[in-house]
């Protein structure tokens, strides 16, 4: 187990290092110049003012020097300073990362808490009306894109029924209840799609597992079909479900780009988007690194969970 963990950790660090280079290059490859964006409107791009600011920001040095400066500071945990606000990027990241994680956690919760029962229900009641209905619900769930389900949620719960805030963010410390109710719609929006996937995989895997001899044996011992399914088939049926959660959990991070914009949720993705529009390099780089790190962390956790359920994973690592 320790060797498995060490192996995974070192490959995670290597991925992160490669990511850092890529992130730096990608940020510089976007056409446009942060100084022109800031001074372009205010001073008409006055060459003297532009040169002065480029010098202050170190943007007049060679790409290699800029990269090594940034990388050296990054190794010491210093993400640099935002070009726009002049504040440390790390402060922004520490504020925003928990908010995006909350969204991902909310989405996962929606997916698991609704997807699993839905999948079990449709497997158990296969051929009956209730089974068909749960199948239909899960199909609708995974075929509706986030920007469609999100808009429907806003209109129905926010504008018509007015039972949940249609958008916005309130710090937990200011008003915990309000904070959580602001989280409900975005969590649903980001999780519904995933819920459909979890339900479909659970259903297929359960039906598959039910064909195994040990389930037949349990049935022969006199267990009801439902009990045999929950007690004996379900634990083994979970392996592909966890695998799919692992593969798709990273997608939730991608989903936050749309959901944060739609629900005006100030997380990591919206920071990245606004920084990209103004070419705030340190913020773009910092938030991309953070996104990579979260992605890597999620897959690491999923690997661990999988190896816990299925010892073969450890053996092949």
């Amino acid at each position, binding site marked *: 187990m320790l060797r498995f963990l060490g192996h995974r950790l070192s490959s995670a660090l290597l991925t992160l290092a490669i990511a850092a280079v890529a992130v730096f290059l990608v940020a510089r490859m976007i*056409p446009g110049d942060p100084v*022109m964006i800031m001074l372009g409107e205010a001073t008409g791009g006055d060459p003297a003012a532009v040169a002065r600011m480029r010098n202050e920001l170190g943007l007049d040095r060679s790409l290699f020097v800029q990269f090594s400066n940034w990388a050296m500071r990054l190794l010491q945990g210093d993400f640099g300073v935002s070009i726009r606000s002049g504040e440390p990027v790390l402060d922004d990241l520490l504020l925003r990362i928990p908010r995006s994680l909350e969204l991902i956690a*909310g989405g996962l919760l929606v997916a698991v808490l609704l997807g699993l029962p839905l999948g079990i229900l449709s497997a158990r009641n296969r051929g009956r009306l209730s089974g068909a209905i749960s199948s239909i619900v899960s199909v609708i769930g995974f075929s509706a894109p986030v920007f469609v389900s999100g808009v429907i949620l806003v209109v129905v719960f926010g504008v018509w029924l007015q039972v949940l805030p*249609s958008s916005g963010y309130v710090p937990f410390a200011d008003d915990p209840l309000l904070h*959580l109710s602001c989280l409900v719609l975005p969590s649903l929006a980001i999780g519904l799609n995933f819920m459909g996937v979890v339900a479909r995989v659970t259903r297929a895997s359960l039906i598959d597992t039910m064909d195994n001899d040990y389930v037949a044996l349990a049935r022969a011992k006199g267990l009801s079909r439902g009990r045999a399914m929950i007690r004996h088939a379900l634990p083994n049926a979970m392996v592909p479900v966890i695998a799919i959660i692992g593969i798709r959990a990273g997608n939730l991070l991608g989903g936050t780009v749309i959901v944060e914009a739609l629900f*005006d949720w100030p997380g990591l993705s919206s920071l990245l988007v606004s920084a990209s529009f103004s070419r705030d390099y340190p913020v773009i780089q910092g938030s991309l690194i953070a996104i990579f790190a979260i992605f890597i962390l999620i897959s690491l956790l999923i690997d661990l969970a999988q190896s816990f359920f299925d010892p073969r994973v450890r053996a092949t690592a």
Partner: protein
Amino acid sequence: MEMTRRSFALTGLTALTGLALGGTSLSAFAAGKAGTLRYGTVTEVTNIDPHIYAGNSWKVLIGVLYSPLVTFDTKGEIVPAVAESWEQPDAATIVFRLREGVTFHDGSALTADDVVFSLERIRDEATGATLRGYLVDCTIAKVDERTVEVKKSEPDASLLSVLALPEAAMVSKAWVESGVNIKSQANGTGPFTLAEYESGVRARLAANPSYFIEGEPKLETVDFRMIKSDDARVSALRSGQLDMIDFVPWKDIDMLARMPNFEVDSASGAFMSVWFNATRAPFDDPRVRRAMAFAVDREAISRAAFFGHGTPIFSAPTPEDSPYYNADLKGTVSLDIEKAKALLAEAGHGEGLDMELIVYQGLGIYTTTAQILQANLKEIGVNVSIRLVEWSDLVSRKNGADYDAMIYGVSMKLNDPDAYSYYLGSESAYWAKPIGYRDETLEALLDEGRQLTDQGARKAVYAKAEERILETMPWIFINYREQAQAYTRKVKGYVHLGGALSEAAPAISLPKIALD
């Protein structure tokens, strides 16, 4: 980490009991705390340096956190602010007498040195201040502890209006020099203090107890939420999470106005225009530019792109309620395909020409306007290809002269016809000024107008200047677009302003707004 795990668990709780929970908390949202105005604004403000303009929401924030020497009231008149009075010994000089007992939010007293420092900071090239161009040839002198003299090298009738803009904010010398980050902290003398601020996300303003105007502000708190998405801003207002929004999307103006619980105020704000790159042939030929101006169907654009909330400009962009409005020019430039074709033929392009139009991709008003223009110009043989770009690309193309033509909305900068030297003057610091365009006749007229003080005499000069502008057509003026503010009926005391005060209107009203 502990925090994250806890919120994780709580999230689950919410997802499960979402409806019940949401129900209770929504009443908290809808009722609103007494004295808190929840304001949804369009720009994500990321830099609150009070001297560097950064969008209309910036103007609102800076307008209530800081104060200039003088300011505009809700009627558009210039009234005392940090200065209690002023006199103009000659047309190039203004002497300001400072109000006694004005303090910054940090408690320190405002002095004549702070005033001099603030204006010098605007003039300093290193600041990159928006008003630098206006003030660069000024000398600023402290006369005594409560008197400051601002003197230009030439008479300038617009100087007082410039100093009344929020961009001419007074800052504390000691505070700025202490090395604070002025891009994300504020210390002004305005009616509100910056209690909380998250760059690009939200700002909480608290009433300044020692504001120098008695009885203001009336609100205890203003919660600013920066919501870039038009739809999210409108639904937040409709679902009761906000009391007021700015920049109401044009498609929603009528819808909100029909709803009984909302008030929608709108007035002409920015004007839309086509900018030419006069360093590039054939756009260096005024006849080509004029030809296109006569091909534009301004009525159609106002109807289709602005849902009827636009007013065609058939002459030059001086608002009809301005004392400088010249009715004789109205209709000088209107839809006339034959004339357009004739002008184009005269310029030697009778067989037509191809051009690229750079258009900001972020707003429907721009893309629809571009499509109508494309169809209009097709009729006179001008083949337009539209290139949609993001904002930063547009700015760098403009400053690098890398375009044929672009469309953009220009917010009115100044409550004075000298705004034309800002828009079109070759010495202007305005980023949008026409590239490659310098007309000696116009320059002379603008210089003359700036140096006169008599309104009648100025009016005659600016009438000639406008005529010249329409003859040389550096920009095609399309229409004024209405800027609308929407709010719930419990908001009292908001006064919407148009023209040059359109952007600053919320800042002018905020200290006077009360909630029912």
